[in-house]
């Protein structure tokens, strides 16, 4: 946990000297804790994103190139009637494809590349299409930082995982009510209010909040707010 005395060694440029806690290191102000939590969360999402990239540029590429090398081997077969050899190579090709399929599944659990490249709208549409789910998406095109996009994406992925109910999801980036950054507001209609805590698991660490309407076990509405930096 946070030490009793907090010394901010790296004040960020955006920080104003009149903010509490900026000069007085003797009393750990709550905001300093919040900022430290936020920084840790951002670092965590950055690491996840770079892990996905590492998989893509490393193992996945290496295994994909095996598929090509096998193709070259098969073509080099001297005896065109060597059926056993062709069958062996075809079986290996299938194994290569299966390994890559598993890697893609893992990568999408770490940080979907489409989320990084195209944002929440395209990434969520792909998720909903791939899982053949009955979800109406209404996502404003504004991009947010990786921590916020990651948290929103995985909060919704958890909701989709937990229940097969038809959902209507609306995502908007709105100006924050308190001083500071914008807030990404996510409204999930048709969701079981019992899923509220799962959504809070993603929104909470970023300083966000979750409101639920309706009785657990029924189709209610979950409204989550994810503050941007």
């Amino acid at each position, binding site marked *: 946990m946070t030490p009793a005395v907090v010394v901010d060694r790296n004040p960020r440029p955006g920080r104003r000297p009149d903010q509490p806690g900026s000069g007085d290191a003797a009393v750990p102000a709550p905001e300093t804790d919040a900022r430290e939590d936020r920084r840790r969360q951002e670092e965590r999402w950055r690491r996840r994103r770079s892990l996905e990239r590492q998989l893509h540029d490393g193992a996945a590429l290496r295994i994909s*190139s095996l598929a090509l090398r096998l193709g070259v081997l098969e073509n080099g077969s001297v005896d065109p009637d060597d059926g056993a050899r062709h069958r062996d190579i075809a079986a290996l090709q299938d194994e290569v494809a299966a390994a890559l399929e598993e890697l893609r599944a893992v990568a999408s659990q770490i940080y979907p590349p489409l989320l990084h490249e195209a944002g929440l709208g395209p990434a969520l549409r792909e998720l909903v299409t791939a899982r053949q789910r*009955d979800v*109406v998406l209404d996502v404003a095109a504004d991009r947010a930082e990786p921590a916020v996009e990651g948290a929103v994406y995985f909060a919704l992925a958890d909701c989709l995982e937990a229940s097969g109910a038809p959902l209507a999801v609306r995502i908007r980036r709105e100006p924050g009510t308190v001083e500071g950054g914008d807030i990404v507001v996510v409204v999930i209609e048709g969701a079981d209010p019992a899923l509220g805590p799962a959504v809070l698991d993603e929104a909470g660490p970023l300083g966000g909040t979750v409101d639920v309407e309706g009785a657990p076990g029924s189709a209610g509405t979950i409204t989550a707010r994810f503050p941007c930096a």
Partner: protein
Amino acid sequence: MRVAVAEDGALFRQGLVMLLEASGHEVVACVPGGDELVAALANDPVDVALLDIRMPPEPDGGLVTAERLRAAHPEMGLLFLSHYAESHYLVRILEIGTDRVGYRLKEKVGSVEVLSDTLSRIADGEIVIEPVLAKRLVEKPRNDRKDVVAALSERERDVLKLMAEGRSNGGIASTLFVSGKAVEKHIASIFDKLGLHGDASVHHRRVLAVLTYLRSQRGES
């Protein structure tokens, strides 16, 4: 066939060149990024250029490079190879061009036959789409909206799926074990149900049918 390769992963690039040469194609350029490819082909276009989607210039250099190549050499075929088969990229690819294009998973072009078949279909003007993607998009439409595709019969959906893979009528007929006439009838019915009438050429309407479907899946109207 004369081809060129742009891919930032050295291992995959080398493997691809080996397989292309084993298939009897002439690799006239083999470069690690999009800008290099545009430069290499400026005065010496090829039949088909093979591009990684996720390469420099980041983040999706393959797409911006393809736009530049299509503008400079409209006759040149474009084959996108990616680790991911996603409808988001397919729609962007179809926005770059609706003929002489292909989008396949990297590991699925790993034989001389598949690679050569993919390249020659693109050079012949077809659209070649990774079957798993076409299947995912067409087979089980989501039931959240009364989208146009829901109005299609099961057999019409099979036909649309094969159209989305870029198959010709003959190819569709032999895959589904039906006559060419039957395929034409299904396609006419698909055009009708998707509201594609008028003067557009059949090829153009085929592409519009596929795009209509994909857009309905992306939640666009």
